[in-house]
């Protein structure tokens, strides 16, 4: 069995990604991929595409007791400790949402929020918050997605008594023509449109109305114009129930 050439591998990668190769041929492709970074990368992309195929299927209607049977089977099955094959089982750190502790230190970066707040007549409350643990308001800090919006940050200050919030974001990826930033509050998994911004600078300062205690998450997406539901993954998203 001779080593597989790049041309031969190229020809088989689609079938390889779909697991549609007989075993001997599959092993020969594997052998090639171990030493060829270029085809390994292509195989990875095709494989990831294959992993989308289950989502072309419609929901089925299993019998209602399937859930019970699974839960019982699981309770009767001890989970195995991490096997040696699991390389680095640490889950990638989630973009944690921390309560803001350094608002004052960074307030200049979020001056835009202060302007919006003043326009809403709640500037005094921000001042209040600087010196006190807020009784009537709560501040959340969010970090941008590590891939889609590295370096982006947002602060959301919620004024409980007014049922009104102010969002300030900075360092968002720049928009291209026709795009907007769209803000969302998410309630029980359903995103509710909370307005758009087409800021050319990657900074947003905007009011957000509504009773935030009804919502579990805040998110920003980049959309091709205002949408009723997001059409893209969020560039920034985080929990509102941190504290």
């Amino acid at each position, binding site marked *: 069995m001779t080593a597989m050439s790049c041309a031969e591998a190229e*020809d088989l*990668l*689609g*079938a390889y*990604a*779909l*697991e*549609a*190769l007989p075993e001997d041929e599959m092993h020969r*492709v594997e052998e090639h*991929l*171990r030493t060829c970074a270029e085809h390994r990368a292509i*195989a*990875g992309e*095709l*494989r*990831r*595409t294959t*992993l*989308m*195929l*289950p*989502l*072309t299927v419609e*929901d*089925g*209607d*299993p*019998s209602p007791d*399937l*859930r019970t*049977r*699974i*839960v019982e089977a*699981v*309770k009767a*099955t*001890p*989970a*195995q*400790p*991490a*096997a040696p094959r699991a390389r*680095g*089982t*640490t*889950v*990638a750190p*989630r973009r944690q949402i921390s309560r803001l502790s350094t608002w004052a230190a960074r307030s200049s970066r979020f001056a835009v929020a202060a302007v919006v707040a003043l326009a809403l007549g709640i500037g005094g409350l921000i001042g209040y918050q600087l010196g006190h643990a807020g009784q009537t308001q709560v501040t959340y800090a969010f970090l941008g997605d*590590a*891939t*889609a919006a590295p370096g982006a940050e947002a602060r959301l200050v919620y004024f409980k008594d007014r049922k009104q919030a102010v969002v300030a974001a900075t360092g968002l990826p720049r928009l291209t023509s026709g795009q907007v930033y769209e803000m969302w509050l*998410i309630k029980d*998994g359903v995103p509710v449109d909370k307005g758009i911004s087409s800021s050319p600078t990657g900074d947003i300062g905007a009011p957000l109305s509504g009773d935030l205690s009804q919502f579990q*998450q805040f998110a920003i997406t980049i959309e091709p114009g205002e949408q009723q539901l997001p*059409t893209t*993954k*969020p560039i920034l*998203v985080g*929990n509102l129930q941190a504290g």
Partner: protein
Amino acid sequence: MAARLKRGETTAIESLYDRYGRLAYGLAFRILNERGAAEDVVQDAFVSVWRNAAGFDASRGSLRNWLFSIVRNRAIDRLRGSTRIRSEIDLADAEPRAQVPDAWEAVALDLERKQIQEGFGELPDPQRRTLELAYFGGYTHVEIASRMHVPLGTVKSRMRIGLEKMRTFLTARGVMA
């Protein structure tokens, strides 16, 4: 959810089932076309996820893809009456995946499904049919060539081009990175 699963919380399996159970069953039924067998496969797959959760590494792929791969592979093995040897080469380094809160995953799932279905639906029939026979039928390229009465080279390029088109479509819509 993955973290709860790794800690061995059985409620995590319930959450996982509530989110993906019907789709997992839909997938198994699509392959096996028989209720009892499809339910067995789904049950096995969830128990397998539970048993091996400690080794799950979220930086190398999503819980969802892992679950569906198990369902698919077990269903195909059952359909074909044998346990197929599968490639174990690690391609996960090609899978950068942003971590998003669970609630967003639920939202994203609906959106992604619509787009994936649209992308799949836009493939020319012969390409789509070829991908279906491979993925949901478990046929090899040679078997597909004989079923579709086309040369093997045609099957191989339909597979490759079909996947590439899906990928281009999904990348343009932000479903894939």
